[in-house]
């Protein structure tokens, strides 16, 4: 086999957690790697690099996406949200994060950011979902520790935490 050539760095401009970023990346660099190793946003984890485990799930343009199945260059002009952007600047946890803590929705914590980002777009409607609907909404995210019970409970009740806060 011939020796692969190293490709040139190219510029990509994107928004990550509200901050504009201009980066030089190799075309083949995965968005997951660039978020983690170039921007230091290591909350996005890498578990399989073939799109099945969901540990690397982020929001791209407000929708959940596998950051291991996107090249960083493809994020040109996109708004990316990662787990680091969830809590308030003063450290107050997002209702989803708070719910995960209350209901023991995490153990080792490796899959957790992916679950949080996957649940973020729909958690406000989770209260009204049937058990089966909620499980289906979270299928696509693997957790090896919790057996999902705490996660389901957390996603279901997060909006009630948001309401508690609203009333407080």
């Amino acid at each position, binding site marked *: 086999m011939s020796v692969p050539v190293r*490709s040139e760095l190219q510029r990509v401009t994107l928004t990550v957690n509200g901050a504009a970023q201009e980066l030089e990346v190799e075309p*083949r660099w995965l968005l997951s790697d660039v978020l983690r190793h170039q921007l230091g946003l290591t909350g996005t984890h890498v578990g399989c*690099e073939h799109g099945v485990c969901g540990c690397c799930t982020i929001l791209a343009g407000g929708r*959940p996406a596998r950051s*291991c*199945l996107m*090249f960083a260059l493809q994020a040109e002009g996109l708004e990316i949200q990662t787990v680091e952007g969830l809590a308030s600047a003063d450290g107050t946890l997002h209702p989803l994060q708070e719910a995960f803590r209350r209901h023991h929705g995490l153990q080792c914590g490796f899959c957790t950011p992916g679950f949080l980002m996957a649940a973020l777009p729909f958690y406000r409607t989770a209260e009204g979902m049937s058990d089966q609907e909620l499980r289906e909404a979270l*299928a696509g995210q693997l957790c090896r520790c919790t057996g999902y019970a705490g996660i389901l409970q957390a996603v279901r009740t997060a909006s009630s935490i948001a309401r508690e806060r609203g009333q407080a």
Partner: protein
Amino acid sequence: MKPAPFAYHRPGSREEVDQLLAQLGSEAKILAGGQSLIPILNMRLASFGHLIDLNHLAGEPAEPAVAGDELVLGPLVRQAAALESALVAEVIPLLSQALRHVAHPAIRSRGTVVGSVVHGDPAAELPAAVALLAGSVRARSRRGTRPILAAELWTGALENTLAEDEWVDELRLPVRKADEGFAFEEFARRSGDYAICGVAARVRAADGELKAAVAYLGMGGLGHVHALPPVAAEEIDGPGLHSALTEAVAELDPGDDLHASARYRRWLALELGLSCVSRAAERALK
């Protein structure tokens, strides 16, 4: 699991894509949603000198639209957009039904309908649905455009009839007629996995008679539609359907693999086919 190097191209228009493909030919691969392609690249099961990323084509519609009696999907209509589209649910309910089984939200948000159709995985939902609908794609190149009937697009698993300089910029699906009913069923080991067996069914009700057709996925072939002999409306659940489907299933050539034997798949094909056709018939008669 990191991809081998490649040159990245970000064309801004369909014409630029034509141009690039004309230059690069077989060295190049089109990258749309990337949800099937990038895993393969990450595992280095394949590598390409050039990737042509469609995601930044200017002015491409994000939603499907109706033109005449067809639904038109551009190359950047995501599976999620099509699934959430009330228009799609109304005019091509089968597409919505099939999309529900496609992977998971974080995949559908990137994956495109056209991309999945062109990719041509025999275990994927969309090729079977599109085949049953007798949809067509528009292949284009610097040389011009040509329509290809879905059934003539695929030559085998992950193989198609596109020339080296061609790509697909459009999928057209005929909208549902008043007398048509559709259903989609699938069995997979886990929610969102590729199908062990799946079936799409269309039933047309006319003059008290029902004409059913089915297309299978996970059963080896790609793009084959089985038209079943017509039956009287009241006999849709009768032995006629059973024997017609049994014949259709006998034509399938599923292989044995880790998750299922051919014999089991045939069983599933018959069972899923029966209920799927019956549900489609109910809808056709409504």
